[in-house]
């Protein structure tokens, strides 16, 4: 990616918003106005005020502080699973495209299976076995999360490998590594990066749904999803408790998707959502 491309991506509003969110969550221990776990049962379910900018929750804890701290958890789990799926997916996708044969066949079957089993069911199975928690969350989502990346990489790499120019390169004696490095990786990198951004957004929402169902992060830890679940019963009296974490998930997911879209856009590609769609059409 050329330099001005990176600039176009990094100097965009969604990138700024994301950066701000990341900085705020990282700095949460220092900047959040209250201890996120400090209860004040007398001050429960307060509306936003100067003392509590986003109000308080059912235990009188400061919603703003909890959103900031909860973000650390939400974002880091989503980030770890995204990175995991990026690495595993790229490696397996490349392997499958390059090696072909039975490996590819196996890959396709596993993919079919994982595609047929809804993510949330798989997560549920793993949680049933391992019990809820941070690592379970990462694992349960990670088990499936790599497949879209792998499918994308596989199909794009296969596409790259079947081009006339790769055949031409091969025929004048290019090594496997040369082809991978010059013809395949640059072709795959952009869309995969864009897709990773999209996946991050989708995973953030998915992970939130696990917490929301009560099978994700477990109290006293909390993330945006579990905050939503906790706040939902009080939604009529105190909608802020729901709106704040809901908006946080939405904002981050939205911005990161826009960022992904910007990547595909400067690469002259289609909408970032199409990377996911492309990944779905296989075989």
């Amino acid at each position: 990616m050329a330099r001005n491309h990176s600039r176009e991506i990094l100097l965009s509003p969604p990138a700024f918003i994301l950066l701000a969110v990341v900085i705020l969550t990282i700095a949460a221990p220092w900047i959040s106005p209250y201890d996120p776990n400090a209860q004040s049962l007398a001050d429960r379910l307060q509306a936003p005020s100067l003392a509590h900018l986003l109000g308080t929750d059912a235990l009188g804890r400061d919603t703003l502080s909890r959103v900031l701290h909860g973000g650390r958890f939400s974002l880091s789990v989503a980030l770890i699973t995204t990175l995991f799926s990026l690495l595993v997916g790229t490696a397996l996708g490349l392997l499958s495209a390059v090696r072909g044969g039975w490996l590819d066949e196996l890959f396709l079957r596993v993919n079919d299976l994982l595609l047929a089993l809804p993510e949330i069911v798989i997560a549920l199975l793993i949680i049933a076995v391992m019990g809820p928690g941070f690592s379970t969350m990462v694992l349960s989502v990670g088990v499936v999360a790599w497949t879209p990346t792998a499918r994308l990489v596989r199909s794009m790499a296969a596409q790259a490998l079947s081009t006339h120019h790769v055949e031409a390169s091969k025929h004048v004696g290019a090594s496997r590594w040369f082809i991978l490095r010059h013809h395949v990786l640059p072709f795959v990198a952009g869309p995969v990066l864009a897709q990773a951004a999209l996946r991050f957004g989708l995973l953030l929402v998915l992970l939130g749904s696990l917490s929301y169902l009560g099978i994700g992060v477990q109290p006293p830890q909390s993330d945006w999803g579990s905050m939503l679940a906790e706040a939902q019963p009080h939604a009529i009296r105190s909608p802020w408790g729901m709106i704040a974490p809901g908006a946080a998930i939405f904002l981050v997911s939205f911005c990161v998707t826009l960022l992904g879209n910007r990547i595909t856009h400067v690469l002259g590609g289609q909408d970032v959502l199409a990377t996911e769609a492309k990944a779905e059409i296989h075989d």
Partner: protein
Amino acid sequence: APEKAADPEARVVVANFRAPVSNWALESDDAYVLSIAGCLETLAKYDQGTKTVEPMLATSWKQSSDTEWDFELRKNVEFQDGTIMDAKAVAASLNHVLKATAPARAVNPKTIKKVEALDADTVRVTTPGADPLLPYRMASVNAGVLSPAAYTGKGIDPMHHCTGPFAPVSEKAGQSLTLDRNENYWDGEVKLAGGEIRYITEGATRATQVQTVEADISMSIPATSLATLEADDKISVLKADSPRTSTLYLNNSRAPFDNPELRKAATMALDLPAMAASIYEGAAQPATGPFAPSEPWANPDLAVPQVNLVEAKKLVEASGYKQEKPLEIIAITERAEFAGVGAIIQEQFKQIGLQANVVTKSYGAAEPDVLAGKYDMILSQRNRMIDIADPIGFLQSDYTCEGGYNLSHYCNEDYDKLVGQALVEKDETKRHDLYRKAGDILAEDAANVWLVNEQAIDAVGAKVQGYVQDPLTRYVLTKDLAKTS
């Protein structure tokens, strides 16, 4: 304003917290759904108002020996399919439950030896030992009576097979049971044309349903929705002491809580009124001890434990307990509010120098360790009067040395002796006296920290008339329930 007249064509929709899962097996909790629906009836009935067991399908009963009880059946009661309810049908129904692989808690071979028809109108129930509580057992929903035709090869078919004021006519799997008025009800005219029991396991959804008038009655409203519903003047919210107490179980069998001083300190550290007011939204009362104050066997002298951090700290020091690693509070996921309760306890324990972590687990995952005594604390809640309106089962299984469900691994011979006496005590007042003494021992020993007595909360729409709340969640659709148009 004068009450509006009831509409004879009206139907009432009840949002129930429980969905039938066992194909209507009467030994399972599905029996409660049939009972709520006004379909299933029992020989006797525990009346919440008079606190006595009263006739229902049986008009009277007598104890013909220590272990034999004869129930005189009501005459001319017909099942909804038109067949006559006779002793044979009743005995068959009860024997069905007794033969179940996983028998009911109140009605099982350990409590009832056999049931037989003496003549057309008399049923004899034989118990293995003297059991003054047998009429209570016969009032439990598991002892319900269905027409012989209900027992089919593929399990139980309740459609038109009950004796109650309402006959089930159709079911939408996993969603609802629809009922029509039983025109031939033995106890007189049924005011409603019919009703529907909707299975809605999400508490918040039940609360919403009564607000949106999709349901007329929503049962077991979660505390979190209480304030909203109470603010709605078209809805009346009914509360009653339920026999459930949220309890912080302490493992009495291993350090540190094998030390009664430390258990007492734990009790003193917790601000129960604040907990009841916050997490429970005032829908629960701070507990005074193992029983709710409204129960006849509760000790009226017991008060809510006062927070006394100074004293508590002293006790902790006196106990000589040196904390090496944080204690663990298991909060079971089945009850959403325990996460918050755990958080509060964690905070308040901190103030007396006890570090604790909250871990959440499904009850199933926690149970093996808890039963094996490998835990520190678990937050759970317990129904003292499961199926029968008497706490003896609870006192026996939960706190005697050999108790089958003694989560806290509590063991006190004096206590065991009292429970043993109560088991065979025929006189109710004396029995209640024994219960109270047993309860006092538990409180004295601070076996657990009883946090709050929960309340049964039902929300009822403005059009409903004649609804009488049953804290034991057995009766909802009754012949007297009515609705204005």
